C-alpha cells in the first residue's frame, strides 16, 4: 500500500485486521474500517470511476457523499458509494457506467464529442427522422443510467421499525455532541444519529491535530456515553423530515420511522468546490476530503499539492498536509488580503509560499486525464477576474480546494425552516424555524470551535425545554460572526471549458451560460433544463455555485432568490428499505375458504377479495361464467355478497335522517319492507346506492356499494352532526356476512331451512324479515338485483360458513350452483340495473342516468336537491341508454369505455357490455346524446383499430321487462 501513512491518532481503521477485496477484477488488501475508495487510494489507485456523460476519469473528490465519482456495483447490489461503503472480506466490485472497465472505458471518446453534446442537446436532437427514434432510444438507454439491476439477486428482508424519543440530534460534531449531552442532562430521552461509522464529525478530520479539539472531543464523547438517557447510533442517516417531527432514519438493515418531540439539526456543512478547468480530474479534491484521508484512514492523498483557499480551513489543511509528509509548493488565497489569523504565519513557517489574491485557473492534466501534472495559478483583479498575463505554473499531483461551505440544510428545509442568504457569511442560514425544530453549529452559521459547542449546548436546552423539561434559562446563542468562510464567487471561466459545476451530471460553466441565453433564466427551469443538482448527489456540491452563476447572469441577488424545494431523501436510499415488509391490508369474507375449495378464481374489488367465477375443469373462463348465469336463470344460484356495506341506523330521528340523506321517500316505508336508495352529494352527483330495510319504527338497516361503506358512513355521521339529529349509526359491514340465494328454486331451497313464512302473500317482493336460517338469527331481504326470485340473507359473520354449507346441502337436489361477480354483472345487466361507479362517473346525476324515478323532488329536503332542481331545468347533454347488437353480429364486440361516435365526433361511451346467454346477443349500456336515445335508433361505436360497429338503442330492462320473475306464477318456470 504505497500511499498508506503511519498510524494516525484517532484513525478509523484497524491495522490488525486485513481485509481482501476485489476491484475491477484485481485483488487488493485494506484494513477493517477502510472504505472502498480509501483502501484503493492507499494502493495508489486514483481512478475510481467514469463520469456520467463524458466518461472522464474520476477519483476521490469529497469522500463524504457529496459526489458520486466512485460508484460501484457488486453481484448483489448496485450504485454503491465507494467513498463511504466499508470493505468486507471477499467483496467484489466494479465501477458503474463503463464500457470495458474503468481503465479502458470505450466510451472515453465522449469527452472529445462534448462540443456536440451541449446542455439540453437531447431536447434538440433525436426526433428526426422519426423512424430512427427507436434506434436512438435504445442507444440512449444503453448510455444513460449508472448501475444495472440484477434480477436474480437474493431477496433480503429489511423490515421497518417505529421508534420514539424526546429529542433527536442529527450530527455528532462539536455542536451535535454538545446538544445531545445538554438535552440529556436536562432529563429527556435523546437519540443522536451520525451518518459515519464514528462519532465526532469535524473533530475527526479538521481538528484531528488540534490538542484542544481532541480533548474537547474526548470529553464530550465520555459524557455522552455515560448518560443512560442518551442513545448514540452511528452509520445511521436521517434521510427525510416529515410532518410532526417524523424522521426517516436509514441504516444498513432497515428504515426506522422515528417520532421525536423535538429535533436538533447539527449536520454541519458541505465543503464547496472552486470551478476551474479540469477541476474534476483525479487529484483535485476538497481539502476536507484530503484531511479525512489522512486522519481517518491514514492515506496520503497526494505527493505534492497546491492548496486553493479562501478561509482559515484551507490553512489548517495545508498544515495537516505538511505534517503528513505531503509537499505543499503553494497556497493560493482567493482573498486579496489573505488570512488574518495566526494560521498564515504558521503556514509560512512551515515553508509554504502563500499567494494572496490568487486563484487556480487550470489543472494541467497528464495524458489520459488520469491525474494532474501541474496547476496554473494567476492573480485576480479587483473584480475577481483572472490576470492571465501573470499566470504561472506549479508542478503538483493534487489540488486541494477550501473555498467555502454550504450548510447541510436539507432536513431543515424539509422541516419547513425558512433560510436566508447571509452576505456576511456568504452562506444560507436559518431565519425562522417551526416549533420544535432547532439548528446548531455550522449549519446554523456558527463557526469557531468554542462557539459551536456553546451553540449546541443552547440548542439542547431549548429542545429539552420544548419537551417540557424544567430548566434554568440559558444564555443567548452565540452570534453569527464573520469573517465569511466562503468565497462569494470561486468560479473561473476558461475558453476550453471543462470547468465543472456539477460533477454528477457533467455540467460545465458554459452549460449554465448557454441555458440562460436560451431563455431558461428562472431557477426551476434552469435546473430542469440543465439538470444541475439532479444527479445522485442532488446538488450538494453544485447548487450554490449554479445559483451564483445564475444570479450574475441575470443581475439578481442571492438574497432575493427562492431556492428549489428540498424533498426527502437527503441521500439516496435503497428501494428495499422503502419497501420493508410490505403491509397490504385486504379484506375477506368469512366464506373465503369455501370459495377456494369450490375452485374460485379471485379478483380484487377495492380491498376485498371476491370470487370472480368458479373454475370448472375442461371449461374456459367464459364458459364457466355463462354456466353460472344459466344456473341462476333456470335453477338456483348462491353468491357471497358479504362485501356490501351494511349500516344500522337507529333512534328517534332515524326515519327523518334517511329521508334527508337519500333521494327517495322513506317516511312512510312500513316496517318489514325495503326500498331502493340513491345517494347524491350536494352537487347532485350520484355517489352511492343500495337498499334500506325498515326493521322497526326507529330502526333501519341500509346497504351500500362494496367500495362505498366507509365513505357513506363517514358522510352520514357528518350530516347527523350538522343536522343535530338523534340517531345511532353503526357501520356493521364486517360484522355481518351476506349471501344472495337467487333463481326459480330459491324459495324451495330456503324454506327447508327456516320457519319463516316465505309465501309471497306474507313475504312479498321487497319485503324484509328477521328470523332464523339453519338455526342462526338472520335478516332476509327479498330483493331482485339479478332479476330472479331471490333472498338476500344477512347474518353474523361467525355463522356464515355454517349457513352457507346448509344452503349448499339443501340446494343439492336443485343443482344449486355458487356464482361469482362476473355472472352477477351479466345478470344485473340483463335487468338493466346500473352499477354506481361503472355506469356512473364523477359527474353523473340521476336525470342523465335515467333514474328520475328514484328522485322525489317534492320532498321538503334531501342532500343534493337544490342542485338537482337547477339541473332539472337544463337540457340534458347525455343520457344513459340500453343498446344491443344484432343476434347475427359477427366481428369485434365493444368493450367498456369504447366511444360512441356521431358524425365524427364523440357522442358518448359504453359503460357496460356483455354477451347475454339469456337473450343470445350482446347488450350494454352507453351514454349517448339525448337525440340518439329514441328507441330503435342506430348508434355507432368505435372499437379496436378504429373499426365502427352499429348498435340499436333498446328498452331496458333487456330481460323480463314486466318483472314477471318476481311473481309467484313465474317462480318455477324456466326462461323461454
Amino acid at each position, binding site marked *: 500500500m504505497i500511499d498508506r501513512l503511519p498510524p494516525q491518532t484517532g484513525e478509523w481503521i484497524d491495522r490488525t485486521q486485513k481485509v481482501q477485496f476485489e476491484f475491477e477484477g484485481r485483488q487488493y488488501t485494506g484494513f477493517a474500517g477502510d472504505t472502498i475508495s480509501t483502501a484503493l487510494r492507499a494502493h495508489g489507485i486514483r481512478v475510481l470511476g467514469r463520469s456520467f456523460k463524458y466518461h472522464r476519469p474520476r477519483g476521490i473528490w469529497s469522500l463524504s457523499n457529496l459526489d458520486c465519482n466512485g460508484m460501484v456495483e457488486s453481484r448483489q447490489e448496485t450504485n454503491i458509494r465507494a467513498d463511504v461503503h466499508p470493505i468486507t472480506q471477499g467483496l467484489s466490485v466494479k465501477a458503474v457506467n463503463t464500457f470495458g472497465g474503468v481503465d479502458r472505458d470505450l466510451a472515453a471518446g465522449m469527452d472529445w464529442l462534448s462540443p456536440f453534446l451541449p446542455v439540453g442537446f437531447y431536447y434538440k436532437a433525436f426526433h428526426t427522422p422519426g423512424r430512427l427514434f427507436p434506434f436512438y432510444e435504445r442507444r440512449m438507454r444503453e448510455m444513460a443510467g449508472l448501475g444495472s439491476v440484477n434480477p436474480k439477486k437474493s431477496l433480503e*428482508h429489511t*423490515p*421497518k*421499525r*417505529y*421508534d*420514539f424519543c424526546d429529542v433527536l440530534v442529527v450530527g455528532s460534531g462539536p455542536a451535535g455532541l454538545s446538544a445531545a449531552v445538554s438535552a440529556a442532562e436536562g432529563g429527556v430521552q435523546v437519540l443522536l444519529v451520525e451518518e459515519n461509522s464514528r462519532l465526532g464529525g469535524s473533530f475527526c478530520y479538521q481538528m484531528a491535530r488540534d490538542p484542544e479539539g481532541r480533548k474537547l472531543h474526548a470529553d464530550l464523547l465520555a459524557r455522552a456515553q455515560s448518560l443512560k438517557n442518551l442513545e448514540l447510533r452511528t452509520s445511521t442517516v436521517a434521510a427525510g423530515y416529515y410532518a410532526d417531527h417524523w424522521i426517516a432514519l436509514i441504516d444498513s438493515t432497515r428504515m426506522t*420511522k422515528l*417520532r421525536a418531540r423535538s429535533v436538533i439539526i447539527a449536520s454541519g456543512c458541505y465543503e464547496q468546490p472552486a470551478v476551474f478547468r479540469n477541476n474534476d480530474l483525479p487529484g483535485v479534491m476538497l481539502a476536507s476530503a484530503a484531511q479525512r484521508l489522512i486522519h481517518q484512514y491514514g492515506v496520503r492523498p497526494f505527493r505534492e499539492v497546491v492548496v486553493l483557499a479562501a478561509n482559515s480551513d484551507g490553512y489548517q489543511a495545508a498544515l495537516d498536509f505538511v505534517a503528513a509528509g505531503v509537499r505543499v509548493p503553494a497556497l493560493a488565497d482567493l482573498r486579496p488580503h489573505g488570512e488574518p489569523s495566526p494560521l498564515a504565519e504558521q503556514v509560512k513557517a512551515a515553508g509554504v509560499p502563500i499567494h494572496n489574491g490568487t486563484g487556480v485557473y487550470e489543472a494541467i492534466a497528464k495524458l489520459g486525464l488520469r491525474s494532474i501534472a501541474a496547476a496554473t495559478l494567476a492573480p485576480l483583479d479587483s473584480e475577481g477576474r483572472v490576470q492571465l498575463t501573470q499566470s504561472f505554473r506549479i508542478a503538483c499531483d493534487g489540488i486541494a480546494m477550501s473555498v467555502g461551505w454550504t450548510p447541510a440544510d436539507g432536513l431543515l428545509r424539509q422541516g419547513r425552516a425558512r433560510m436566508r442568504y447571509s452576505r456576511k457569511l456568504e452562506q444560507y442560514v436559518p431565519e425562522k424555524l417551526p416549533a420544535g425544530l432547532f439548528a446548531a453549529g455550522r449549519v446554523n452559521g456558527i463557526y469557531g470551535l468554542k462557539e459551536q459547542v456553546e451553540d449546541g449546548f443552547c440548542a439542547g436546552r431549548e429542545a429539552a425545554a420544548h419537551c417540557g423539561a424544567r430548566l434554568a434559562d440559558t444564555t443567548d446563542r452565540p452570534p453569527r460572526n464573520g469573517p465569511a468562510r466562503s468565497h462569494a464567487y470561486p468560479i473561473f471561466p476558461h475558453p476550453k471549458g471543462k470547468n465543472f459545476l456539477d460533477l454528477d451530471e457533467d455540467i460545465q460553466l458554459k452549460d449554465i451560460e448557454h441555458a440562460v441565453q436560451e431563455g431558461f433564466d428562472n431557477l426551476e427551469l434552469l435546473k430542469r433544463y440543465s439538470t444541475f443538482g439532479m444527479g445522485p448527489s442532488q446538488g450538494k456540491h453544485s447548487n450554490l455555485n449554479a445559483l451564483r452563476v445564475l444570479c450574475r447572469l441575470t443581475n439578481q441577488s442571492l438574497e432575493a432568490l427562492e431556492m428549489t424545494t428540498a424533498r426527502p431523501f437527503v441521500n439516496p436510499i435503497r428501494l428495499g428499505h422503502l419497501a420493508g*415488509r410490505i*403491509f*397490504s*391490508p*385486504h*379484506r*375477506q*369474507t*368469512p366464506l*373465503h*375458504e369455501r370459495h377456494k375449495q369450490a375452485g374460485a378464481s379471485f379478483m380484487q374489488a377495492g380491498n*376485498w377479495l371476491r370470487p370472480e367465477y368458479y373454475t370448472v375443469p375442461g371449461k374456459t373462463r367464459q364458459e364457466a361464467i355463462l354456466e353460472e348465469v344459466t344456473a341462476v336463470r333456470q335453477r338456483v344460484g348462491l353468491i357471497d355478497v*358479504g362485501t356490501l356495506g351494511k349500516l*344500522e341506523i*337507529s*333512534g*328517534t330521528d332515524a326515519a327523518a335522517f334517511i329521508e334527508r340523506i337519500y333521494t327517495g321517500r322513506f317516511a312512510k316505508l312500513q316496517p318489514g319492507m325495503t326500498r331502493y336508495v340513491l345517494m347524491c352529494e350536494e352537487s347532485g352527483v350520484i355517489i352511492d346506492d343500495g337498499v334500506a330495510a325498515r326493521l322497526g319504527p*326507529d330502526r333501519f338497516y341500509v346497504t351500500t356499494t362494496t367500495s362505498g361503506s366507509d365513505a357513506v358512513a363517514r358522510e352520514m355521521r357528518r350530516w347527523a352532526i350538522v343536522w343535530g339529529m*338523534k340517531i*345511532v349509526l*353503526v357501520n*356493521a*359491514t*364486517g*360484522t*355481518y356476512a351476506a349471501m344472495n340465494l337467487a333463481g326459480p328454486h330459491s324459495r324451495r331451497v330456503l324454506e327447508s331451512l327456516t320457519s319463516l313464512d316465505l309465501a309471497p302473500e306474507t313475504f312479498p317482493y321487497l319485503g324484509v324479515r328477521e328470523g332464523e336460517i339453519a*338455526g*342462526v338469527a338472520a335478516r332476509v331481504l327479498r330483493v331482485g338485483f339479478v332479476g330472479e326470485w331471490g333472498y338476500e340473507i344477512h347474518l*353474523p*359473520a*361467525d*355463522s*356464515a*360458513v*355454517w349457513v352457507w354449507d346448509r344452503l349448499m346441502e339443501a340446494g343439492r337436489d336443485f343443482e344449486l350452483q355458487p356464482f361469482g361477480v362476473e355472472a352477477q354483472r351479466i345478470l344485473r345487466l340483463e335487468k338493466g340495473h346500473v352499477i354506481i361507479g361503472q355506469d356512473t362517473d364523477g359527474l353523473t346525476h340521476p336525470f342523465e342516468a335515467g333514474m328520475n324515478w328514484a328522485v322525489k323532488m317534492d320532498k321538503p329536503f334531501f342532500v343534493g336537491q337544490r342542485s338537482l332542481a337547477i339541473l332539472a331545468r337544463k337540457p340534458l347533454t347525455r343520457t344513459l341508454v340500453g343498446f344491443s347488437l344484432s343476434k347475427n353480429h359477427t366481428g369485434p364486440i365493444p368493450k367498456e369505455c369504447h366511444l360512441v361516435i356521431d358524425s365524427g365526433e364523440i357522442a358518448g361511451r359504453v359503460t357496460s357490455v356483455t354477451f347475454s346467454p339469456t337473450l343470445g346477443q350482446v347488450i350494454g349500456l352507453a351514454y349517448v346524446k339525448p337525440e340518439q336515445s329514441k328507441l330503435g335508433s342506430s348508434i355507432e361505436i368505435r372499437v379496436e383499430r378504429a373499426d365502427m360497429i352499429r348498435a340499436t338503442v333498446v328498452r331496458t330492462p333487456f330481460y323480463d321487462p314486466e318483472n314477471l320473475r318476481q311473481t309467484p306464477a313465474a317462480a318455477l318456470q324456466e326462461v323461454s
Partner: protein
Amino acid sequence: MNLSSSIRRSPVHDCLEELHPIWGHIHNMKVPLRFKEAASEVKLKSELSLCDLSCLPKTSVKGPESLAWLADAGIPVPENVYGCCSLGDDGLVIRTDRHEVFLEDGPASHRVSELEHELRSHSSGVYLVRRQDASFLLTGARSNAVLRETCGVDFSQPPDGVVMTRVAGASCMLLPLQPEEASAFRFWLDPSYGSYLWNALLEIVHDQGGDAIGLDAFFPSFGQPTQ
C-alpha cells in the same frame, strides 16, 4: 359436542387449521387448545406468542341511556373514555365512547348473551351493537418488538386504557394488558381483516423467534379437546 357442527367459526379459523392444532371448543366455537407440547407453549407465552381469542363473545351497548342501563344491570363502566375494567371471570368492559361500552366475556362467563337478551325487551335510548371482531392476544417479553414493526404508538409510555390505532395497516383497538412491562397486548379488529392481520403478525412473530399458541396456555380448564 360434535366439533364439526360448531356453528361459530373464528375469522381466522382457516389460518389456524393450517397449523394443525389440537382442537377444543369454547362458547360454541372450535378453538385451538394447543399447537405444541404444553410446556413449550407456556415458555412461548413468556417469550413471544400469538393467540386467537375470537371465540370470546362480545357486544357493544350504545345510546344516551346506555350507561344508566348498564349500571342498573350491575355492569361497572370505566369513568374515562377508552378506560377499561373487569367484567369478572376474565371478562372485560371498555368504554369506547361517551355513550358506548364494549363488553367481552371470559371463557366461562355468559354475561354478554344475558345482556343481549335483556336488551331485546328494553325500550329506547339503548341500542345493541353486534360485535364479531377478530381478537388476538400477543404476549411475551419480545411482544413490543413486534409492535415496533407494525404500530406507530409508543408503548414504552403506557397509555391509560385502549388505544385506537393501526397495526400493520389495519385499524385496531389495542389494549396493553401489562403496561409497565409492555409484554401483553389484546387486539380487536373488523373480522374481514382478521386473516390478513393474523398472517402479518405471525410472520413477524416467527421472525422474532416466537410462535402461535393455543388457549390452554391461558385458560387450561376450559377447552374441551376434540374426540
